[in-house]
C-alpha cells in the first residue's frame, strides 16, 4: 500500500512541475539588483506589490537595495491594481517618468500599466522563475494532510467496525449531528460568540457524547437484537440526519466564539491541529489494536464470532464498545469540521460514510472482517486524498474524477479478493 502511495506521489510530482515565481525578501533583493544593473544607479523605480506578508517583505527588500545604491524610489503600491493606477496617475501628474517597475509575478500580470502609454507592462522587472512541482509545495502537502485529517480520524472507528465484519453507515449523519448539537448548545446555553473556553470544550463534548450515544444505540441493536449492522446504521443515518436538520431548522449556525476555531484552524509545533490530532489518534489506535487485549478481541470476533464467543471473548461488550468508539470519532470529526468552517451545519458530512469506507477498503482492510491494519487505513485515506488533490492540480474534469475514484475503489476490493484466493 505504501508503495502505491509513493508511486502516486512521484506521478503527481512529475505531472505538476510548473514555473514557480519566488516572492519574499530574497526575491525583492534580486529584483533590486537586476534593476540597478539594467538602469544604473539613477533609476527611477516604482515598487508594486499586494498587501500580503510575503509581498511586504519583497517590497521592503527591493526598496532597501535600491535606496542603498542611490536609486530614486518614486513610490510604493501596496494593494490592488486600482491603487497602482492611482499611484501612477499621481506620479505622472507631478511630471516624473518611471524607468522600471519592481513587481512580482502576480502584480506584473496586471494590465493596469498599459493604460499609460509612457509606462507599459514591459517596464516590469520580476524575479527569476524556477521549476518545482506544485504538488510538492509545502503548502500543498500541508493542505492535503489537513483535508484528509477528518476523514482519517473517522476512518479509525470505521476500521475497527469493519474488522469485526460490521459496517457503520451513520458516520456521515453523525458528523452533522455533532456539528449542529454542539453549535446549538453553545449558542443557546453558553452565550454564543461570547462563550468562554471551558464552555466551548463542554459544548464539543456534548456533540461527541451525543454521537457516542448514537453509536452505542447502533451497537445495542446489533448485539442484543441481532439486527444486521447495515440496516441498523442505515436507520441511524436517516434519523441522525433528520434530527440535525430539525434541530438547526435547516440553516447553518454561525454564532460561535473564536475559541472554537482553534481545533480546526490553529497550529501547534508548526503543524495544523487536525493533522497533529490525527497522528496522535492513529498512534493510540495502533497501540490498542496491536498491543491490547481489546484489539485482539476485535480481530477474533471478525475472524469467527462463534469461535471467539466459545473461547471466552465478551463479544457483545466488545461490539458495543466498537460501535460507540466509531460514533464518538464521527462526532469528533463533526466538531473539527465545525471548527474549520466556523459554523454548525446540518448539511455537513454528506456522503462521508462512503469516503471513509473507501479509505478503509483501499487501506487493505477486508470487508469480510478479521483482517486489516490501522496504519493501512491511514495510507488508504492518503491515497484517496492524493489522487483527488493531484487530479485537481492537473485539471482533470470533475466528472472524470468520479470515474477514477470509483475505479480505484473497485480495484482495491479486487486486490482484496485476489489476495484471499492466492
Amino acid at each position, binding site marked *: 500500500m505504501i508503495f502505491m502511495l509513493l508511486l502516486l506521489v512521484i506521478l503527481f510530482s512529475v505531472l505538476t512541475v510548473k514555473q514557480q515565481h519566488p516572492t519574499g525578501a530574497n526575491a525583492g533583493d534580486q529584483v533590486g539588483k537586476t534593476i540597478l544593473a539594467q538602469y544604473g544607479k539613477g533609476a527611477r523605480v516604482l515598487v508594486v506589490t499586494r498587501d500580503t506578508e510575503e509581498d511586504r517583505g519583497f517590497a521592503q527588500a527591493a526598496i532597501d537595495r535600491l535606496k542603498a545604491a542611490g536609486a530614486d524610489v518614486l513610490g510604493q503600491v501596496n494593494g490592488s491594481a486600482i491603487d497602482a493606477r492611482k499611484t501612477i496617475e499621481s506620479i505622472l501628474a507631478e511630471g516624473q517618468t518611471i524607468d522600471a517597475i519592481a513587481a512580482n509575478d502576480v502584480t506584473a500580470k496586471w494590465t493596469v500599466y498599459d493604460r499609460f502609454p509612457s509606462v507599459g507592462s514591459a517596464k516590469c522587472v520580476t524575479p527569476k522563475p524556477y521549476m518545482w512541482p506544485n504538488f510538492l509545495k509545502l503548502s500543498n502537502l500541508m493542505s492535503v494532510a489537513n483535508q484528509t485529517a477528518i476523514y482519517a480520524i473517522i476512518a479509525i472507528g470505521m476500521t475497527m467496525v469493519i474488522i469485526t465484519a460490521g459496517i457503520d453507515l451513520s458516520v456521515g449523519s453523525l458528523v452533522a449531528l455533532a456539528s449542529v448539537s454542539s453549535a446549538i448548545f453553545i449558542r443557546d446555553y453558553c452565550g454564543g460568540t461570547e462563550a468562554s473556553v471551558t464552555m466551548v470544550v463542554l459544548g464539543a463534548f456534548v456533540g461527541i457524547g451525543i454521537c457516542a450515544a448514537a453509536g452505542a444505540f447502533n451497537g445495542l441493536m446489533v448485539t442484543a437484537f441481532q439486527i444486521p449492522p447495515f440496516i441498523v446504521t442505515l436507520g441511524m443515518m436517516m434519523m441522525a440526519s433528520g434530527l440535525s436538520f430539525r434541530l438547526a431548522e435547516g*440553516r447553518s449556525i454561525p454564532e460561535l466564539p473564536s475559541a472554537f476555531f482553534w481545533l480546526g484552524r490553529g497550529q501547534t509545533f508548526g503543524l495544523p491541529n487536525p493533522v497533529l490530532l490525527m497522528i496522535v489518534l492513529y498512534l493510540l489506535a495502533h497501540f490498542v489494536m496491536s498491543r491490547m487485549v481489546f484489539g485482539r478481541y476485535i480481530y477474533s470476533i471478525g475472524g469467527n464470532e462463534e469461535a471467539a464467543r466459545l473461547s471466552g471473548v465478551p463479544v457483545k461488550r466488545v461490539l458495543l464498545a466498537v460501535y460507540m468508539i466509531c460514533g464518538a470519532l464521527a462526532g469528533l470529526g463533526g466538531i473539527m469540521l465545525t471548527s474549520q468552517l466556523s459554523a454548525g451545519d446540518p448539511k455537513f458530512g454528506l456522503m462521508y460514510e462512503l469516503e471513509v469506507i473507501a479509505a478503509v477498503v483501499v487501506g487493505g482492510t477486508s470487508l469480510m472482517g478479521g483482517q486489516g491494519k490501522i496504519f493501512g487505513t491511514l495510507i488508504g485515506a492518503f491515497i484517496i486524498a492524493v489522487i483527488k488533490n493531484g487530479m485537481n492540480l492537473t485539471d482533470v474534469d470533475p466528472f472524470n474524477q468520479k470515474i477514477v475514484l470509483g475505479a480505484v475503489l473497485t480495484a482495491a476490493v479486487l486486490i482484496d479478493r485476489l489476495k484471499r484466493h492466492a
Partner: protein
Amino acid sequence: MVRLSLAMILCLLMVTSGCGKAPSESSSKIKSQDPASVQNKGTIGFSALTLTNPFFKVIADNMQEEAAKHGYELIVLSAERDVKKQADHVDEFLVKGVSAIILNPCDSNGIGPAIKKANDKGVPVFTNDIKYDGDEGKVVCHVATDNYQGGKLAGEAMVKLLGDSGGKVAILHFPQAESCQLRVKGFHEIVNAHNGKTKNAKIEVVATLDGGGVRDEGFKGTKDVIESNPDLAAIFAINDPSALGARAALEAAGKADQVTIIAFDGQQIGKQAILEGKILCDPIQFPDQIGKVTIEQIIKYFNGDDVKTEILIPSKLHYKEDAEKDPLLKG
C-alpha cells in the same frame, strides 16, 4: 498479482490525467515564448455550486469563453454543494497560484475562512449567483440576477392576469435561499400595491408553502393547497422545477385549466413548459450575462478600474410569444 493490479490503476490514472492535462500543457507552451505574456495573463479558478444544474453550467461555459477572449485560462471545479469541498478547492487554487478566484458559495457563512485565506495570499475573490454573507473575508464583487426586480415582474404578471377579477393565490417558496426571499418580497409589494387600489378585485395570497425548489416538494405542497382552497386561481413558484411539480399536481387533480402558474428562472425546461402553455410566464435570469459580467469585472479589476461591490442583472418577463421565437425549443 498485486503488482499487476497496481499497474492497472496507475495506467488508468495516467490516461485520465493525460486527457485533463492536454489544454494546460499547450498553454504553458505559449508561456515559454515569453513576449506572448499578453497571450496568457494567468489563470482564474472557479468553484461552482454544482455543475449538474444547467444554470451553473451555462455560467461556467460563458465565463470560460469570455476569459479566453481576454487571455485568461479558467479552471472549473464543482463543489457539489459541499462547503468543505469548496474550501479545499480554494486551497488548491492558491497552490496553483491563480490570479483570481470565483465562487458560488455553497454556504453563505461557512466559506468565510476560505475567502479569508485567499485574501491573506492577496488573491481577489469574486462571487456570482449566491452571495457571501459573513464578515470574515472580503469579496471584490458579487454578480447576480436582480431577484427583487424579478419578483416585482412576477407580481406585475399576476396583476395583469387577475387584476380585473381578483382571486386566490398560493406561493411556492424556498425560504432558505436569500434570492427566493427577495423574489417573494418583490412579488408581495406589487400585489399589495394593487390591492390598495382596488375594492373588489383583490388578489389574496392564501398560502405560502415551502416547495423546496424541487419538483416533488412542489407537487406535494400544491396537492395540499388545492385540497384546502378548491377555488385557487393562480400559483407563483420561485423556480421552474417546483412550478412543474405544481403543474403535475394540478393535472392529477383535474384543475390544470383553473389554476395558472407563474414561475421564475427561465431554464430550458421552464421555457419549454411556457411554450406548451403549462406555465404562463417566467421572469427569466440570464446566466450567460452573469458569467460574462463576472469576467468583465475581473478584467476591470486588474486594469486598475474601480469595481462596484455588487452588480445586479435585471430579469425580463418571458411569455409564450417569446418562447415561440426561441430556436432551441421544440414546438
